[in-house]
């Protein structure tokens, strides 16, 4: 059991680190978001499961709820941020044709000064 817990924790942490590297390396905000929210979620979840396996002091309920809340909030937050990113006119890399053009108002200049 301990080995499983340790493995899950290492994997989770690794995913978190990868996600963080993605946030640094990926070229535009929308791409970084994929890395941050999804890989981050998975990493957190794995880490928490590992902790729960290791710890039998009654943290299970809280741990699972913790995972649930992460799963609930991060994607919704990501969607909102994604749209806001688009709308606020941030430059996006590699998007050739934009089907949203005409569907959503987009700032011509980025909001960032």
């Amino acid at each position: 059991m301990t080995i499983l817990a340790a493995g899950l924790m290492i994997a989770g942490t690794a995913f978190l680190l990868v996600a963080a590297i993605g946030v640094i390396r990926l070229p535009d905000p929308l791409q970084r978001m994929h890395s941050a929210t999804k890989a981050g979620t998975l990493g957190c979840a794995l880490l928490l499961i590992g902790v729960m396996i290791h710890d039998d002091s009654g943290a299970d309920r809280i741990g699972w709820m913790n995972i649930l809340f992460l799963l609930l909030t991060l994607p919704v937050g990501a969607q909102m941020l994604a749209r806001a990113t688009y709308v606020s006119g941030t430059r996006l890399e590699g998007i050739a044709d934009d089907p949203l053009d005409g569907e959503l108002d987009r700032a011509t200049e980025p909001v960032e000064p």
Partner: protein
Amino acid sequence: MTAPLRRIRAGIVLTGIFLWDLVAASCDVARIVLSPRMRTSPRIVVVPIALTRPAAIALFAYFVSLTPGSTCLHVSRDRTRLFVHILDTDDDAATIARFKSHFERWIAELLE
């Protein structure tokens, strides 16, 4: 199959698909991020929605977004199209088809 049972089945299937997608796509992201010559081909694609209930549409968008590599950018005001940002794809049609078969179908079973 009775409606409740169908829903339960749909729920289980969705969870399974979702977990698999989460792990698989996270690994994809990891691969992309860690590759020395990091190359992505991001796209914004339009996914037509066959669902009608707002909750169902929201769930669809949620699943699309929860899967690494894709995020729902916008739901059209008439709720017929989903605009999805995809981190790395070469084939729009295949991606759309995957969304519809993986998620939309089972969400329809679950909620419609």
